[in-house]
C-alpha cells in the first residue's frame, strides 16, 4: 500500500514520468550525477562505524570471558554468567538505588527550575534587567565539570568556603559536607541547577516568545490576573517543548553522567555516590574486569532504551508531542 502510494506520487511529477526510467536506474543516475555528495559522507560514516558500531558489536564480550589475545568474537562464550553475578552481587541494589535516587531527585528539581525562571523572566517588562539575568544565569554553562566540582569542594570546605561561614554564622557547628553521605545527592542536584538553569531556560523563553499575542489580549479582556495568564496561556504554550525534554530526561534516568559524580566521589561519601557508570569505570578500566563491567553497562543501556521507547509511546498517546 505504502509502496503504491510512493510510485503514484513519483508519477505525478511529469519530469520522471517522461524519462520513463525504472526507479532503480533513476536512483543510480542520481547517485552518479551527485557522486560528490556520496564521497563527502564516507569519512563521517567511517567514523560512525568504527567508533559507534564496532563497540556495539564488541558489547558481546558481556556474554564472553574476554581475553586480549582472542578478541571480541574469539573469547569463550559464557552466556549470562556476568549478568548473574552482577544481579547477585551485594552492590546491585545499592547501585540501582543510588542511580535512580539521584536521577529522580535531579528530575524533580532540575526539570521545573528552568521553567520557573523562564516564566518569571517573561513577566518583567524591563528588557535591561531581563537581559542581565539571562546573560548571568547562562554563564555557568561554560564552566567545565572539573572546575565546577573544584568550586563545590572549595565552597563547602571548612577552611576556604563561604558556605561554612554562613553555617557557623547561624550558630551551627561546621559541617563536612563532602564527607557526609546524606548530603551528596543534594549537593549534586543543586549544583547542577546552578550550572544549568540559564541554559535550560533559553528553550522555554523562545517557546514563550512564540505564543500568539492575541491570546494575551483575550486574557486581558477576560480580566485574567497575571497568575491566571501564566496558568492558562504560558503553560500550555511551553507544554510541547517541556514534554519533549521530559521524555529525553526520563529516557536518561539510568544514565547519570560519569564525569561529575566521579569527581565528587571520595571514600567517605561513596555509599551514596556510587552509581552504575562509576562502577563500570572502576570495575572495568581500573579493575580490568572487561566482560563483567560490559555486562553491567549493557544491562544499563538496554534498560535506558526500553525506558525511552516506553515514555515516548506514552507521550504519543496522551499528547501530540513525541520524539518520533
Amino acid at each position: 500500500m505504502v509502496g503504491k502510494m510512493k510510485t503514484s506520487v513519483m508519477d505525478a511529477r511529469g519530469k520522471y514520468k517522461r524519462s520513463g526510467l525504472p526507479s532503480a536506474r533513476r536512483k543510480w543516475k542520481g547517485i552518479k550525477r551527485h557522486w560528490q555528495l556520496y564521497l563527502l559522507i564516507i569519512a563521517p560514516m567511517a567514523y560512525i562505524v568504527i567508533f559507534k558500531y564496532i563497540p556495539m558489536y564488541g558489547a558481546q564480550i558481556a556474554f564472553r570471558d574476554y581475553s586480549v589475545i582472542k578478541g571480541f568474537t574469539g573469547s569463550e562464550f559464557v552466556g549470562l554468567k556476568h549478568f548473574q553475578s552482577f544481579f547477585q552481587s551485594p552492590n546491585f541494589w545499592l547501585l540501582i538505588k543510588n542511580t535512580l535516587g539521584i536521577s529522580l531527585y535531579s528530575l524533580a528539581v532540575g526539570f521545573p527550575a528552568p521553567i520557573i525562571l523562564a516564566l518569571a523572566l517573561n513577566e518583567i517588562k524591563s528588557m535591561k534587567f531581563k537581559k542581565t539575568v539571562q546573560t548571568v544565569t547562562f554563564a555557568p554553562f561554560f564552566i567545565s565539570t572539573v572546575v565546577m566540582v573544584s568550586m563545590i569542594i572549595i565552597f563547602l570546605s571548612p577552611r576556604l568556603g563561604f558556605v561554612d561561614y554562613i553555617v557557623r554564622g547561624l550558630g551551627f557547628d561546621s559541617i563536612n559536607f563532602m564527607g557526609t553521605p546524606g548530603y551528596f545527592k543534594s549537593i549534586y542536584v543543586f549544583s547542577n541547577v546552578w550550572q544549568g538553569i540559564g541554559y535550560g531556560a533559553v528553550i522555554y523563553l523562545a517557546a514563550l516568545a512564540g505564543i500568539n499575542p492575541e491570546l494575551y489580549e483575550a486574557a486581558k479582556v477576560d480580566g485574567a490576573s497575571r497568575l491566571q495568564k501564566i496558568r492558562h496561556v504560558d503553560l500550555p504554550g511551553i507544554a510541547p517543548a517541556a514534554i519533549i525534554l521530559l521524555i529525553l530526561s526520563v529516557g536518561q534516568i539510568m544514565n547519570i553522567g560519569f564525569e561529575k559524580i566521579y569527581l565528587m566521589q571520595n571514600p567517605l561519601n561513596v555509599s551514596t555516590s556510587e552509581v552504575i557508570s562509576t562502577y563500570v569505570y572502576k570495575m572495568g578500566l581500573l579493575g580490568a574486569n572487561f566482560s563483567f563491567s560490559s555486562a553491567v553497562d549493557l544491562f544499563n543501556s538496554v534498560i535506558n532504551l526500553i525506558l525511552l521507547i516506553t515514555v515516548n509511546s506514552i507521550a504519543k498517546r496522551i499528547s501530540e508531542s513525541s520524539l518520533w
Partner: protein
Amino acid sequence: MNRVNAIRESVRDRIFLGLIYIFLFCVLAVVIYPLIFILSSSFSSPQAVVSGRVWLWPVDISLMGYKVIFSNPAILTGYINSFIYTVLGVMINIVMTVAIAYPLSKSTFVGRNAIMMILVFTILFSGGLIPTYLTVKAAGILDTRWAMVLPGALAVFQVIVARTFFQSTIPKELGEAAELDGCSDIGFLWRVVLPLSKAILAVLILFYAVGNWNAYFDALIYLKSPELYPLQIILRNILILNSIDASSLVDANQMAARQGLRDLLKFSLIVVATVPILCIYPFVQKFFVQGIMIGSIKG
C-alpha cells in the same frame, strides 16, 4: 463595584510582579556571588584567602597565584595541549559535521532515511565504555594526541542541528540553478552554502569548542603520558586530588606560607581555566540561543 474589582486585581498583580522581581534578584545573586568570590580570592594575598577575609572584593591585592601558575611547567604544558586539542578537534568536528549534514539535507539523497536512522540509533544505544575503549586501543591511538580528537570527531546531535539548518535556510532553487550552471556539489557547498550558513557554523564551532576545552573523560581513560595531558586533567590533579609538586611553589619555604599559596592557587587556576572559553561568550550569545532553538525544532 467593577472598578474597585479592577483596582484590587491590579494591586494583587503588582504584588505578584514585585515578588517576581525579588525572586529574580535572588537568582541573580546566587549565580553571580560564587563567581565574584572566586575572582576576588584569586586576586588577593594568600594570607587573606586562608584567614577568610575575602568575602566580596579582593583583599591585599596581589598577583601571587597567577605568577605561580605561569611559572609551573605542568600547567603551561596542559594549557598548550588543551589549545591544540581544541583547535584540531574543532576543525575535525566541523568538517565531519558539514560533510554528513549537507548531503542528508538534500531530499534527493539516496539512502537518506536509512543513514539518519543509523545515526540516531547511536544516540539511543551505545556499546558502552569498555568496548569503546578496546576499539580505540585496537585502532592504535591509545596514549596519542589522536585519542583526544578522533573518538569524539562527530556529535550526532550537532549533525541533526546542522541538517535542519541547511534544509530550512538554503532554497532548493539555488542548488538547481547552480547545477544548471555546471557547478559541482562540493563547489556549491563551498561557495554558496557555507557563506550562507555563518550562523550555524558559529554555533557548531562554539558548542564543539566548549566541549573540547572542557573535556576530561577521554583524557582520563585514553592518556597515560603526562606530557599529553590537557589542562582539565592537570586541574583535576591539583584542585581535586590535591596533588601538586610542592617544590614548584616559589618563595614559599615555610609550611604555612606554602599551604596559603596552595589554596590561593586553586582560585587563580579556576579563573585561568575558565576565562579563555568565557571570553567568547558575549560575542556569540545570540548565535548560541539561535543554535539551541534550531536543535529544538527537530530534537
